[in-house]
């Protein structure tokens, strides 16, 4: 096999978006070259040791290049969360649909919109932001995303701006005759002292087969704050790939919750870079994998500067023949003194057929740091189960309660109560249908 297998993703011509922007075409072309040069990931590459892309390639995905205009606001009502007030941006198969979105009133210094739209109206606002955090040296799927760069969400907060409501991105996938790949590129830039909350939700109408290959670039200025809640609840037949690139300025704070529930095959690459001291990055994650599901996480946290803190806390629930990979790397450079880093990955494996490969790595080159990591893979405690049953709670419900309790630590970080309840319901619903015995 060769890189040519992704040729259909790249297409022969560029997407129409940003037509006439030389800088953008240059970035796309460089990314295309990168894709061709890289070839297909194999298990010999460390980043792909536990995960094969064979299943993904077999689907013969082609770019989702048609705009889905038939959807009416009432068609998406079922995916809205009652009680969640937000600046809502809806993307369908990777395309921003203003008719379904409800951005609402924005305070001064805040811009929220579609990438394509802003490339048209104010391309200079994006020129340095596209690949601004992800860089030019991108791994395969990010490079594919850049090569096909077409549309996505843009959130720009100028210095000191603040949003009182979260920005909610709903990425909805709709099945087509041919299996499609949507490659949204999201740009979130929070300048000095600005604050925002971003909720990303990846959902589908129906159970169709498709692929989402998204990239999000987050840049935080000095003392900026972003709370980011990402819920991946794709169709059970979907493929989901995401690259999250986060750059933290001095004194800034990023707090992320990454929930992975859906998709047959899901891959997440999280890259964190500190661009200033005294910044804090908190990455929380919850994933569930049942029959035919793979959840694959790769964290790359690079402490290059002193006095920064990072938390990586991921929990997984595996059942049936579910599989998960947690590959977390925290690097502390020689000069990054006073780094405070703690990585934890805990897994509940509820069946013999389920499997998890956990590989936390701490690479520390500084001598005055506080770093720790831990991994556990275990089952439900029989004493806990007995305690619940002795109170009249039947074994299946008792198991569900304990699993939800396990997940609760992560779900509790979700600030918005309606969102938290909705996600807890989804987790509970999956557990209800999981073969937990």
């Amino acid at each position, binding site marked *: 096999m060769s890189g040519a297998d992704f040729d259909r993703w790249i297409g022969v011509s560029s997407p129409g978006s940003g037509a006439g922007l030389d800088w953008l075409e240059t970035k796309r072309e460089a990314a295309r070259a990168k894709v061709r040069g890289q070839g297909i990931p194999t298990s010999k590459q460390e980043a792909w040791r536990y995960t094969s892309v064979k299943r993904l390639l077999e689907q013969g995905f082609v770019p989702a290049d048609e705009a889905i205009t038939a959807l009416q606001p009432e068609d998406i009502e079922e995916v809205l969360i009652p009680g969640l007030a937000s600046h809502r941006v809806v993307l369908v198969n990777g395309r921003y649909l203003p008719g379904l979105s409800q951005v609402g009133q924005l305070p001064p210094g805040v811009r929220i919109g579609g990438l394509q739209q802003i490339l048209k109206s104010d391309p200079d606002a994006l020129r340095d932001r596209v690949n601004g955090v992800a860089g030019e040296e991108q791994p395969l799927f990010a490079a594919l995303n850049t090569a096909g760069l077409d549309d996505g969400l843009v959130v720009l907060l100028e210095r000191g701006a603040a949003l009182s409501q979260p920005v909610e991105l709903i990425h909805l996938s709709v099945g087509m005759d041919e299996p499609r790949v949507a490659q949204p590129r999201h740009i979130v830039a929070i300048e000095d002292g600005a604050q925002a909350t971003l909720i990303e939700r990846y959902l589908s109408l129906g159970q169709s087969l498709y692929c989402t290959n998204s990239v999000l670039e987050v840049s935080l200025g000095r003392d900026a704050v972003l709370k980011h809640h990402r819920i991946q609840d794709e169709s059970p037949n979907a493929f989901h790939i995401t690259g999250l690139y986060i750059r933290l300025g001095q004194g800034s704070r990023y707090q992320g919750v990454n929930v992975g529930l859906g998709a047959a095959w899901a891959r997440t690459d999280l890259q964190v870079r500190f661009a200033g001291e005294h910044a804090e990055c908190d990455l929380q994650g919850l994933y569930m994998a049942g029959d035919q599901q793979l959840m694959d996480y790769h964290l790359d946290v690079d402490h290059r500067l002193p006095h920064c803190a990072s938390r990586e806390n991921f929990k997984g629930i595996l059942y049936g023949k579910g599989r998960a990979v947690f590959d977390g790397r925290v690097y502390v450079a020689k000069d990054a003194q006073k780094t405070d880093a703690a990585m934890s990955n805990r897994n509940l494996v509820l069946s013999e057929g389920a499997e998890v490969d956990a590989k936390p790595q701490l690479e520390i080159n500084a001598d005055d740091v506080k770093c720790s990591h831990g991994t556990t893979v275990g089952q439900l*405690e*029989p*004493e*806990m189960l*007995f*305690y*619940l*049953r*002795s*109170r*009249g*709670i*039947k*074994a299946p*419900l*008792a198991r569900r*309660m*304990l699993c*939800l*309790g*396990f*997940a*609760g*630590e992560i779900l509790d970080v979700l600030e918005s109560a309606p969102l938290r309840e909705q996600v807890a319901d989804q987790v509970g619903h999956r557990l209800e249908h999981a073969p937990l015995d």
Partner: protein
Amino acid sequence: MLSVKGLKANVGEKEILKGLDLEIGPGEVHAIMGPNGSGKSTFAHVLSGREGYEVTGGSVSFEGQDLLAMEPEERAHRGLFLAFQYPVELPGVNNTYFLKAALNSIRKSRGEPELDAVSFLRLMKEKLKVLHLDDSLLKRPVNFGFSGGEKKRNEIFQMALLEPKLAILDETDSGLDIDALRIVADGVNTLRSPERSVILVTHYQRLLDYIQPDYVHVLSGGRIIRSGGKDLALELEERGYGWITGEEVAA
């Protein structure tokens, strides 16, 4: 209500209960006392259906039904309650949610409608008041980070809420200071009724100053070797277990 005949049980290869007989009528409070290792806790666990114990002989019938054939949840549905010596911590499981799930599971098994959130809260408040407990325990995860006394109080609170027919208190008094002991005892006394029976498993006589038992049994070597009224407990307090267990050896 409960009839235990010649009960024998092993933990692993070791025989712990060696033919235990006990009859408990409705409304009776029985104290089971005995030295460490006599099989007191094993007996409580076997009654509740905990795994890890193998019943090798005898029978236990609860209101005419074979208790040993039931799953732990079924025993609870029929009105059996064990207050744990070491209540289990359940991180992430909210105490109120847990109590509601337990109560509704039991109600459902009896064909009663489940309580909605409002009626449940009302009931909880009422029980808290009776037991003179505050509601801070309810917002936390079950037993998680609770002090020893809080854990025991939470057990008593569960008992009050679930209103069992037969409550077994497994060394609920151990490790409690006098105030906590009083709360536990008040809880049990409040629940005393002509239909409700209680088994107090305890090492010390102290608890019996607050809960007056109808009968006191001494368990030793996996069997009940002496039964009597509450005076027996006082005698044990004064003379230790040696004089009876010694008597047993001599006999």
